[in-house]
């Protein structure tokens, strides 16, 4: 029996000794040899070396080896960085190695350590007392230590960067500017303004590495490494990403990254805000309206091209229309553009920039339309037209191609277009014809013809004027009424293939959608049917073609009536579609 007992006694002795050993090693290690204690002993030696005057000797004498921390309740910071960075505010520590060196620059003059702490600017794990945990790149901590060049992203929390010395916030300012220039707002919302195709970016800087897809990023998985890589190749970092980034340099990607990191919703007490930040916040709440060109650059250019030439995104299967070209701007009425801005285009990528959503105020939307109009090409003036040479053959060709569908091949008028060759029309003169051609007739299917040269206009006007006078008068002409039922049959025959049998959209846009019904008038539908839409598969049914029949004016009216009244039945019940005015 005693060998059993002896076994237990030996076990007890062995385990007790080993336990004592572990306890002693742990106690000695924790109490005497932790990283910060070793460092502070080294620092004390440096202090002794530098204690050349009375002040220095006092500092040396009073130096104790202890944990140091800066506690700033207002900023929710408990930063123990100063436990190792002991010389951070001692100006004598310029020639010593890290972590003892003084903070570079004059930042601490304005941001005393005991009032601001460290992590409010540098991030990293403040409570930590060793370098690995403090840096927090590969430990469990949401915000690792920012690298030196990224630290300027923290300035935005309390400063208006425009008011800071440009050298200190170079990247931040560059990023902010790039955000506008590259028209990021076309897809991303910031402070309530911008499109909704991408994510809102107001708090993007608060994201942690767990909220970003790191599969294709080499470690360390920091958010900034993700941003830099993502700006260069979004789909390569996030499979299936639809983000479109214009080609940018590494430096630009870095600047944008700094700006992204700066975009954080932080609860900074007012007493910490620089006065200019308060002014900036005031400006945010009372924004000065943007002028048309600013809006276009900030919110439209990414898709519609800076000059309005439209863009093709083959990877997304999306074509942004060339809204600066005459094909669009000549046909689109102000009301159509405004309604599209307001509601966006459902089933298309065009987002809503509605005033209700805080993006563009009504005035700003008007300003944008004005900008589009002002930038659009203009038809030659009457004087220029009259100076140009006339060519009857050209005039006839143009008339038959562009005008005859609505106004009749002899200018006798159709239910869709008023007669041009009547006596009272002749009396109105060439100036009226020129005005109608150059500016269109608002609210009707009559578009602008800005793409015509002076010679073409001259020939067209001359040809029109030379048509034999027809009986009847323009004053008595009335726009024909379309028949929705007749339109339905036509629609099924020639439109449903692309627009869907219910107008739900297939390869072509949805016509029954709320957005379209709200934006388009019967006149717009009619004009589009007659003229087609250049750059898209929508053919011009006003011209004879191999594939499509040439529609008569009545048929066009029927189609317009069906599209607006047959497909848009629900809408009409509450809001009758405005009838086009009787017009030239």
């Amino acid at each position, binding site marked *: *029996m005693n060998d*059993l*007992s002896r*076994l*237990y*006694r030996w*076990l*007890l002795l062995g*385990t*007790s000794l*080993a*336990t004592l050993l*572990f*306890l002693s*090693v*742990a*106690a000695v290690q*924790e*109490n005497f040899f932790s990283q910060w204690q070793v460092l502070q002993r080294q620092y004390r030696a440096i202090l002794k070396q530098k204690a050349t005057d009375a002040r220095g000797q006092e500092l040396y004498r009073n130096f104790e080896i202890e*944990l140091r*921390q800066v506690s700033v309740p207002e900023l929710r910071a*408990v930063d*123990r960085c100063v436990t190792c960075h002991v010389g951070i505010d001692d100006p004598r520590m310029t020639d010593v190695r890290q972590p003892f060196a003084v903070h570079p620059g004059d930042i601490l003059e304005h941001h005393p350590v005991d009032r601001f702490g460290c992590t409010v600017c540098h991030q990293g794990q403040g*409570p*930590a*007392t060793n370098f690995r*945990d403090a840096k927090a790149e590969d430990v*469990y*901590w*949401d915000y690792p230590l920012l690298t030196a060049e990224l630290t300027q992203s923290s300035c935005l929390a309390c400063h208006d960067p425009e008011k800071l010395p440009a050298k200190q916030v170079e990247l931040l300012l560059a990023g902010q500017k790039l955000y506008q220039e590259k028209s990021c707002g076309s897809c991303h919302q910031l402070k309530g303004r911008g499109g909704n195709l991408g994510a809102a970016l107001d708090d993007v800087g608060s994201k*942690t*590495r*767990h*909220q*970003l*897809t*790191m*599969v294709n*990023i080499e470690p360390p*998985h920091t958010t900034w490494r993700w941003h830099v890589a993502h700006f260069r190749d979004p789909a390569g970092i996030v499979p299936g990403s639809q983000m479109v980034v214009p080609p940018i340099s590494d430096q630009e990607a870095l600047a944008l990254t700094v700006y992204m990191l700066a975009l954080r919703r932080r609860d900074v007490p007012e007493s910490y805000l620089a006065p200019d930040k308060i002014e900036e916040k005031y400006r945010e709440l009372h924004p000065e309206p943007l002028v048309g060109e600013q809006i276009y650059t900030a919110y439209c250019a990414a898709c519609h091209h800076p000059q309005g030439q439209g863009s093709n995104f083959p990877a997304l299967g999306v074509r942004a229309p060339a809204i600066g070209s005459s094909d669009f701007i000549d046909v689109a009425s102000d009301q159509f553009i405004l309604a599209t801005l307001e509601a966006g285009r459902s089933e298309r990528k065009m987002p809503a920039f509605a005033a209700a959503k805080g993006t563009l105020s009504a005035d700003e939307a008007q300003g944008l339309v004005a900008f589009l109009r002002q930038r659009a090409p203009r038809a030659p003036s009457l004087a220029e037209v009259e100076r140009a040479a006339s060519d009857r053959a050209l005039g006839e060709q143009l008339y038959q191609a562009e005008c005859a569908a609505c106004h009749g091949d002899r200018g006798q008028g159709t239910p869709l277009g008023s007669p041009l060759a009547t006596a009272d029309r002749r009396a109105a003169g060439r100036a009226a014809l020129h005005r109608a051609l150059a500016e269109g007739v608002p609210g009707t299917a009559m578009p602008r013809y800005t793409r015509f040269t002076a010679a073409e206009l001259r020939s067209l006007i001359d040809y029109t004027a030379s048509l034999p006078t027809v009986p009847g008068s323009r004053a008595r002409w009335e726009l024909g009424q379309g028949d929705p039922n007749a339109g339905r049959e036509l629609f099924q025959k020639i439109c449903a293939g692309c627009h869907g049998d219910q107008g739900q959209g297939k390869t072509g846009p949805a016509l029954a959608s709320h957005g379209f019904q709200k934006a388009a008038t019967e006149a717009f539908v009619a004009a589009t049917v007659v003229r087609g839409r250049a750059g898209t598969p929508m053919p011009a049914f006003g011209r004879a073609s191999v594939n499509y029949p040439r529609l008569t004016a009545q048929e066009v009216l029927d189609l317009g009536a069906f599209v607006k009244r047959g497909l848009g039945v629900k809408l009409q019940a509450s809001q009758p579609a405005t009838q086009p005015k009787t017009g030239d």
Partner: protein
Amino acid sequence: MATQLTPPPGSNAAQEFLHNLRHLPQTFKDAWLRLGKVPESEREESQATFHNFFLHIHSVRVHVRSLAPTLTLGLGLIATSSFIVLCITGVLLMVYYKPSTELAYQSMKDIHFTVATGRFVRNIHRWSAHIMVLAVFLHMARVFFTASYKKPREFNWLIGLALLVVTLGLSFTGYLLPWDQLAYWAITIGANIANSPRELTDALGITAWFDPGGFQRRLLLGANYVGEDALIRFYILHVFVLPVVLVILVSVHFWRIRKDGGLARPEDPMGGGAEWGGRVRPVFQPLATKTYGLMALVRGRRPPVNRGPENTMMSWPHLFWAELAVFMFTVLISLALSFFFDAPLKEIANPAIPENPAKAPWYFLGIQELVSYSAFTGGLMIPLVALIGLALIPFLDRRPGGEGVWFGTPGERPVAWQSALFGFAVAVGMLAFTVNFGWLRSWFPRIPQLVILLINPGSLLVLLYAGWSLWVLRQRNSVRLAAVALFTCFLVGFTVLTYFATVHRGPNWQFYWWPSQWPVH
């Protein structure tokens, strides 16, 4: 000795005072220890045990079999020892811990970085908790396979089960306290399991009128989300309610061991003792001439009075050496683990960033695997059925025999091996099938949830195990062997599921061969 302690006769009060002062250490020791010296005779050794508050729950003599390390492997003692370590380190942690969602995480960081040896103390607490849970599981297995639950120890088996539940509860409630991501999402899973009766009531469409799931969840969390109320509830349960319940249950558990006649063991052969190689001294001479005082009534079929040599040893000091050795062994293991491996602490709890995968503590991962098929069946029904089944074992298997011997029933060892093999094959097969081919919902997307609730890999596993056990019952004509078959299957199945969920389940509870293949987030 006693004579020296009384002042010499005829001394005055001052002399008496000085005399008493001089002898203070000895008189205090006498008063404190009652015996006052190292026991020298067996009689004094008995008194050392019997007259000590902490030791008197032991019997004065202990059977050699009970002392042999191979019978118990010291598992119950390891569990108790780690509980003692947990109490001590727990109190130390309470000094710095602040149970509020605002401060909890910060106080964890303080403990980790600034409290002297705080990180070490927390590590010990964490590792001891793991050791305790593991020891309790293994202890249960030991008691089962040595048939130690049999009459008269049925009730202590039930207390043991209650202790298992309380131990898991203690560990689980401690999980939330650091208020980090790990804690938050593990408790979210726990709360969802509490909520899982809704799966049934939703399937029946009666949740609006009868919602035990929602009630359970609110009872657990004190709110509809994991927040301050949940933290305080878990804190109170963790530092007060459950430890007190555990201490009471452990006391009863120990007391019943004593009253049920010590650790289970086979009857000693009458007049024998040869099997112990003559190492055991006879304590009672046959036909003893001694008279006995009644010390305590213990259960047993034969009173150990007036019969031949017993295979027992004095508890003092042999049993106490053993107990101390196991205690120090447990301490050493948790110290060594704590020295090299830090307890995890993830980022601060953030409801906006779900952990993926959010995994429960390891001992619940087997259940979480079942929960992934059906929360109600896997999270509540199967554990409940398993617990009830375990509780019924000593009442259904009442034929004596095999107590205190590993696999002591004839034919038990082969049945245990076969059952282990069967349980392993079925569990692995079921998992492989589910991973490769999915389950009902992947084949019939519109199938009613009620069907999945009834027929899922978890419930099928239970049915197959039960079927196997019934087959053994008929084939071997032994309740004990059927119980062995069922218990072994469950043990192996539980282990397989736990391993599988720990290693092979990644984000979205998808199958991966290794965690290194997980998509990084």
